């Protein structure tokens, strides 16, 4: 492009300066390479057959019955999981936004806990707890004579759904509550005044108003389920599209094209459902990190019996969905029961000794801390920049930036992972190492997958910062850059911290790219692995690796919980932190 049209492009609408123009170009280039690029290359891989471009790969893929079954299963699991998570998430959201009862604050913390499920080991511990020889299964049989035939969690689709549901329902809860607490009380009072009450009030007024949040949560749940590799693998449930993609990639005789085809189909499904959803809610609602104004909705103090009922209900939900956490702690710290029994055989710290005693497992923690921190930093800087341009500047091409920056939310993680693997497969000149085997590619992948959160959070915070706060600074003699550094960014800090922490936590427990973009074959070999890959490798070793995997899982849980706690301490005063995680 020559110089002139470029200037015209930016001058078309007012108030675009060169600082913003430069940031826009930088952001667009980065996002094109690291978000669009990987997605496109997966599509290329899927449509490029041996004889040329076309649907050849798709035909071959479709001819394999297990593949068809896997796709169908993933779709079914997505739908059923979304249904069950709604069943738990919606009432919880309503209760938590409308009622106050003893232990409210504690519940509020506990209810987000299921989201911090350590990958692999979380699903695996469900087998240990509820499997055919699970502790809870044996306990129920011995004490109550109650028999869970062949265990509740077994290699079946419903078990995959069960594990996903216990993990993902807070997505619905958090996003719906965000919407619910934003509803102007007078809207409901108005309906009440006109005679509406009870279920009618909820179904005609309250729920429709909360729909954007609920839809966002439901969509995130659906996409997450569509790209779940961990649960099917751990439950040994083979025919599940995303894990099939992973399998075809790592299997010796695997057909890599199948992986591409699966990814393309999954992407199309998720984009189709997004378009369907978009008729109800804007893209922007999909990730809500809300910091600021406390709820102004009608809040009722629950009476004694209602409180008791609510607490019982919530406790049941929490107990069920923290089983993976409890299981992880048990695997990490205890000698598991003998076959057919439920009694722990005592303390066992062997897993910890192995994890802390070996250099390569020590590195796991340091690596993941480093990778996740770097990714979070990239997200904060890039998110603040993009958020700023989107909110404060008006120019053509803005909507393109907007769409690309939220794309990772709508595209299953497994797609991005595969894309990174393809895009960075060329070898580094002068070495035998592929680009993708360097750990910083993993960092970039982490940061891009979680970028929507920081973009959205800085977007939301910026909209609450009145422009005149920036204009006042310029009026008094501050340059644009100075204004940005002294006024805008400090005012955005709460949102930036929230978004950054979210990036950190999710990068720390990320599965798809950690598993597929393997720095294992890079120059640092086994010493560059992220913690998630470490857990997977440990479990693959069989019985001897369970305890170390558990220990690593505990480290993930504790780190993530600590981050949640700290962020709430820092920004909590100014409001609450509620997050949709994808």
């Amino acid at each position, binding site marked *: 492009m020559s110089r002139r049209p470029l200037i015209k492009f930016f001058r078309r609408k*007012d108030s675009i300066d060169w600082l913003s123009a430069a940031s826009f170009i930088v952001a667009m280039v980065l996002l094109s390479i690291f978000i669009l690029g990987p997605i496109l290359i997966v599509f290329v891989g899927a449509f490029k057959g041996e004889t040329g471009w076309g649907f050849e790969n798709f035909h071959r893929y479709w001819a394999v019955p297990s593949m068809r079954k896997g796709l169908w299963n993933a779709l079914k699991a997505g739908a059923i999981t979304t249904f069950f998570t709604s069943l738990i998430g919606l009432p919880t959201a309503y209760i938590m936004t409308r009622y106050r009862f003893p232990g409210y604050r504690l519940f509020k913390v506990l209810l987000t806990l299921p989201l911090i499920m350590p990958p692999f080991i979380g699903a695996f511990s469900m087998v240990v707890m509820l499997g055919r020889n699970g502790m809870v299964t044996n306990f129920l049989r011995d004490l109550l004579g109650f028999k869970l035939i062949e265990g509740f969690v077994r290699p079946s689709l419903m078990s995959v759904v069960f594990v996903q549901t216990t993990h993902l329902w807070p997505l619905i809860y958090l996003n719906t509550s965000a919407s619910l607490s934003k509803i102007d009380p007078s809207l409901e009072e108005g309906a009440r005044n006109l005679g509406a009450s009870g279920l009618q009030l909820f179904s005609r007024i309250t729920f429709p108003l909360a729909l954007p949040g609920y839809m966002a949560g439901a969509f995130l749940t659906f996409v997450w389920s569509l790209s779940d590799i961990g649960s099917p693998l751990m439950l040994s449930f083979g025919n599940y599209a995303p894990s099939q993609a992973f399998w075809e990639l790592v299997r010796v005789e695997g057909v890599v094209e199948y992986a591409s085809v699966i990814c393309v189909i999954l992407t199309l499904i998720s984009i189709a459902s997004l378009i369907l959803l978009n008729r109800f809610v804007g893209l922007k609602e999909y990730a809500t990190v809300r910091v600021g104004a406390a709820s102004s909705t009608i809040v009722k103090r629950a009476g004694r019996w209602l409180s008791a009922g609510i607490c019982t209900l919530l406790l049941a939900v929490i107990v069920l969905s923290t089983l993976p956490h409890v299981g992880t702690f048990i695997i990490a710290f205890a000698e598991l029961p003998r076959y057919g029994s439920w009694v722990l055989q005592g303390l066992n710290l062997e897993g910890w000794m192995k994890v802390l005693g070996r250099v390569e497992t020590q590195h796991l923690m340091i690596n993941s801390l480093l990778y996740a921190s770097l990714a979070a930093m990239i997200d904060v800087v890039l998110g603040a920049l993009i958020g700023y341009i989107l909110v404060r500047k008006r120019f053509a091409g803005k909507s393109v930036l907007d769409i690309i920056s939220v794309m990772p939310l709508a595209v299953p993680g497994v797609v991005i992972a595969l894309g990174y693997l393809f895009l960075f497969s060329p070898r580094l000149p002068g070495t035998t190492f592929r680009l993708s085997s360097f750990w910083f590619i993993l960092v970039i992948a982490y940061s891009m997958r979680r970028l929507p959160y920081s973009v959205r959070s800085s977007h939301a915070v910026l909209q609450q910062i009145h422009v005149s706060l920036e*204009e006042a600074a*310029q009026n008094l*003699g*501050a*340059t644009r850059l*100075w204004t940005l550094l002294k006024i805008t960014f400090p*005012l955005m800090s709460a949102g930036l911290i929230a978004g950054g922490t979210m990036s950190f936590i999710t990068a720390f427990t990320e599965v798809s790219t950690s598993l597929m973009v393997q720095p294992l074959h890079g120059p640092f070999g086994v010493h560059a692995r992220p913690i998630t890959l470490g857990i997977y490798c440990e479990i693959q070793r069989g019985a001897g690796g369970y305890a170390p995997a558990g220990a690593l899982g505990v480290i993930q849980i504790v780190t993530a919980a600590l981050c949640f706690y700290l962020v709430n301490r820092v920004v909590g005063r100014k409001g609450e932190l509620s997050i949709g995680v994808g």
Partner: protein
Amino acid sequence: MVDVRVENVTKLFEDVVAADDITLKIEEGRFFTLLGPSGCGKTTILRIIAGFTKQDKGNIYFGEKLMNDVPPHQRNTGMVFQTYALWPHMKIFDNIGFGLNFHKTLKKEKERRVYEVLRLTGLEGLERRFPSQLSGGQQQRVALARAIVIEPQVLLLDEPLSNLDAKLRIQMRTEIKRIQKRLAITTIYVTHDQEEALSISDEIAILDKGAVQQIGTPREIYEEPHNSFVAGFIGLTNFLRGRISEIDETELSATVSTIEGLEIKAKLKADEDWRKGLNVIASIRPEAIIIHKHGSATSGVNRIDGSVGVAGYLGNRVRYEIETIWGDTLRVDIYNPRHQYIFKEGENVSMLFDSEDVTLIKIE
């Protein structure tokens, strides 16, 4: 201190004309007000002067210096925002002192300047607080202090009092005027409140639909409105449409025959060109009219008969809405009603007014 000139400034937002070929000259040290209904373009002009909005056409001068391409932060204007725009993460001292960081000569004596302004605005002792810990009136003072501490060439105020309650608003406008006089700083003030504008300004520009309707002192604006918009916007008035049927050169007065068949005598402004047959609007302020019981008035000149529609008691005055026989409603204010008879609704009355209180406005 400088004078400010706005020359032929035009600004369009999409298709809406926010400023239509506006020319203003604000003398050095004067308190100049841009007054008009919402959407008239007054804030746009202020923002063009501050440099936040760029005009499509026209020039802005501070003194002899053309400001068109000077970015906002180099214009040396002090602006008070409608929302105050106090930075919530900075203490009052840092809010006020912020601008001094960019003025080399002032940087050295930052502390002294800040305390001086704190004293001037009556904010002593609050400098260690955060904006959220202050009342609305105090926040307003901080916004003003922050703008004047840098000793700007021009002080810009964008509806600074609109977020305060009525009592405080009156108190603060006196305060702003006092400080402005003391610093003798060229000031441009934007408001939609006509009483505020009349009480505070040296000069007022009335704007409507992006165009200047009239520029003048408060007295000129109120007493000699140039067109019906100004007459109707500033204060309340009664309009009667008609045509000049006779001109008395010696008395310098005219007789207007209204559409309703009334004869109204009006004094003429000497310096204007009046002709027989000219279409005019006669504007009569409510407070210029007195009312009598029907039949008791002797004079036939400038008399309109009607019946009382509404008699609204307002304490210091009674606001009558009198229905004329041709179906119009005229408003009449009778001040200090304490010892007067208050007419009842439905009573027949005669309204009388002096020919000197009739303002004629030409219709183009």
